[in-house]
């Protein structure tokens, strides 16, 4: 029996890169959360800022990498470490979802809904802005 080559998501080197980026991204997210504590019943600014910065940087990174050529070698390592690992872990969806629900539970359902909708729409805009900046950098 020969199992054939391992799929990419089971290669030890890839897993190590994702784990390293994930540790750093999680620590960075935690640091931002400590610096910007959410006031009781208020807008969770830390999560919003983290998610928008992360979405912008991921758009920028992935577009720059795709312009640079094939997803192999150093480019692939950079994508796994910085994209999948660091920025993937820096941003979070679970905290966003729970914060939306907790705002509703605290009697602020309108603020919760606004926070959720503003997050996803501005996340889209932030990722698109990152892509556009990468395209501009390429042209200049």
């Amino acid at each position, binding site marked *: 029996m020969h199992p054939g080559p391992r*799929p*990419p*998501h*089971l290669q030890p080197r*890839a*897993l190590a890169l*994702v*784990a*390293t*980026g*994930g*540790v750093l*991204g*999680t*620590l960075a*997210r*935690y640091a931002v*959360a400590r610096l910007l504590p959410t006031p009781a019943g208020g807008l969770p600014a830390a999560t919003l800022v983290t*998610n928008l910065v*992360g*979405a912008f*940087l*991921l*758009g920028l990174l*992935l577009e720059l990498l795709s312009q640079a050529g094939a997803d192999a070698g150093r480019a692939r390592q950079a994508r*796994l470490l910085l*994209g*999948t*690992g660091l*920025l*993937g*872990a*820096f*941003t*979070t*969806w*679970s*905290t*966003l*979802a*729970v914060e*939306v*629900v*907790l705002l509703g*539970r605290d009697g602020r359902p309108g603020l919760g809904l606004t926070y*959720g*909708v503003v*997050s*996803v*729409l501005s*996340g*889209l805009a*932030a*990722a*698109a802005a990152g*892509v556009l900046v990468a395209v501009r950098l390429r042209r200049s």
Partner: protein
Amino acid sequence: MSAAVVVGLALAGGLGSVARYVLDGWLTARRPGPFPLATLVINVLGSQLLGLLTGLVLFHGAGDGWRVVLGTGFCGGFTTFSTASWASVQLVRAGRRDLAALNVVGSLALTTLAAVLGLALAAL
């Protein structure tokens, strides 16, 4: 917050990221297609788990250290906002505004529902 909790949080975040990468690769290999289904499934699962953990702290007085390690660490590293946003942008660029809208609206609706379900499970 103690140093042990910060170390645990960081390691759990790395583990959550690896779990996301492996599950994403596994799901995408089985259900290939333009829609980023794997990221959506991951975000729904992670939101439900964080809802459950938050409920255990709120309703049962579970230790906050566990919520930080498993919630902020593991669930935070497992779920991702940047990949979901980038995937929607790619769908728009590919002319699939319908799927992009479905991803944006579906992600928010399903993860919120999953978080409610997690909290409700903890309240039982």
